């Protein structure tokens, strides 16, 4: 696989399952100092310190392609090991249990399902909209509350269960409110596209790289024996 690695910088595996534009996320992460590898096989995750799952479109074809590439179990293991993970757009939606869009079963790391945006004046929701924070997180350091980010989607994850409220980092309104950023410990997800959200989006990706570097350093000690450390599931 293509790698833009230079010396230094967080080693980020951007999961490549044939679902769209990887150029922007690769370019954006590289511009904030990360070393990016496009990961199309489980082996490509081997020396990564953080994983980013981008993607657009529907859940079922995405799950099928991830399964064909043998990536579903390695990604679930990655999450269970407490390692840094960022899902973007469809990459966030896949973290939920299933999708209303096509009924696909997804990762089930976050309780709840992906639902159609309610009361939306237009669908798909395309364009810049405000990301309103529900609590602080390093991911949004230095980014003003209510900053516009770029969205392009019709569905969004709806967290359920006891940990639902606590896991909501930000919400956005298009018709009704939906969850636009989540936090499940080592797993972060954003419904917008930071790689297409100008300077604010680049800042968020830089924040992710710093947060992941700190987490990877901490988790490295905790990871032996395998299975220790905080996990994202089971809320």
């Amino acid at each position, binding site marked *: 696989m293509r790698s833009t690695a230079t010396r230094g910088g967080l080693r980020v595996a951007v999961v490549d399952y044939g679902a*769209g534009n990887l*150029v922007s996320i690769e370019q954006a992460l590289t511009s904030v100092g990360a070393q990016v590898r496009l990961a199309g096989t489980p082996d490509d995750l081997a020396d990564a310190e953080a994983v980013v799952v981008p993607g657009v*479109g529907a859940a079922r074809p995405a799950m099928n392609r991830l399964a064909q590439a043998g990536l579903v179990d390695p990604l679930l293991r990655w999450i269970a090991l407490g390692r840094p993970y960022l899902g973007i757009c469809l990459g966030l939606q896949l973290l939920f249990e299933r999708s209303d869009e096509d009924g696909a079963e997804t990762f089930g790391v976050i309780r709840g399902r992906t639902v159609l945006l309610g009361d939306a004046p237009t669908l*798909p929701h*395309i*364009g810049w*909209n405000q990301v309103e924070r529900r609590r602080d997180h390093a991911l949004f350091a230095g980014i003003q509350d209510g900053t516009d980010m770029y969205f392009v*989607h019709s569905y969004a994850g709806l967290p359920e269960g006891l940990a639902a409220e606590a896991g909501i980092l930000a919400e956005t309104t298009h018709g009704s409110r939906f969850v636009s950023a989540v936090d499940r410990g080592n797993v972060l997800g954003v419904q917008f596209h930071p790689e297409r959200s100008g300077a604010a989006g680049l800042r968020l990706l830089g924040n992710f790289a710093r947060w992941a570097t700190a987490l990877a350093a901490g988790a490295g000690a905790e990871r032996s024996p395998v299975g220790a450390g905080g996990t994202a599931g089971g809320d």
Partner: protein
Amino acid sequence: MLRRRIIACLDVANGRVVKGTRFVDLVDEGDPPELAARYADEGADELVFLDITAATEGRATLLDIVERTARHAFVPLTVGGGVRTVEDMRAVLRAGADRVSLNTAAVAAPDLVTGCARAFGRQAVVVAIDARRIADPGSAVARWEVLVRGGRDETGLDAVDWAVRAAELGAGELLITSIDRDGTQSGFDTDLLRAITDRVGIPVIASGGAAGPADFISAVVDGGADAVLAASIFHRRLHSIADIKRTMLAAGIPIRATRGVAA
């Protein structure tokens, strides 16, 4: 609240940005990646890259220029021209497009719209419609015909009917260009826009005829457009994106704050 978008359009032929009047008399306007970076920096909310000779030359999209353009701007990029199959679309997305615009190929094979929407989601599929007003002084109701292959071929299709059909087939957005107004700086055809925005629930991009800030306001208020696209006035620096955004804001239209614009 969702902002209305200002889109800078790069019409590309032979690897260069060009601009004509009513789709002919093309003039060289610059290098695609350079202009993309400039417009992103100046506050464009999105870029549209149209390979305007791909359909007429019967070839695929110029992927290397798409990729260089995508790498130069951290704002969304829609790419059109030369996409005839789902696999063509996959290649254009892989080259760095966020969304793909279908025009001639969608008219020839409407199933393409559905196939692309199934594969990548409808939000990734833009159907571009080049519409020309039908001269009929006897009729009280305006009508427009769809033209394809860069405005060269008539189709007999009614533009509003095709817009409604495209939305049903799976388009996630419509890019509506008035051929009569294209490059003329005589204002958008807001009748055309309104006829379509009244009939579809997906967002609509207004294109063709931008002269100044008042036209952008009119496209949104009178035409019901969700996004407004222009080319000539940006290439030739007749108006800055910041000027247009400030005027739209003053008119009460929600706009993304970018350099020189406080929302």
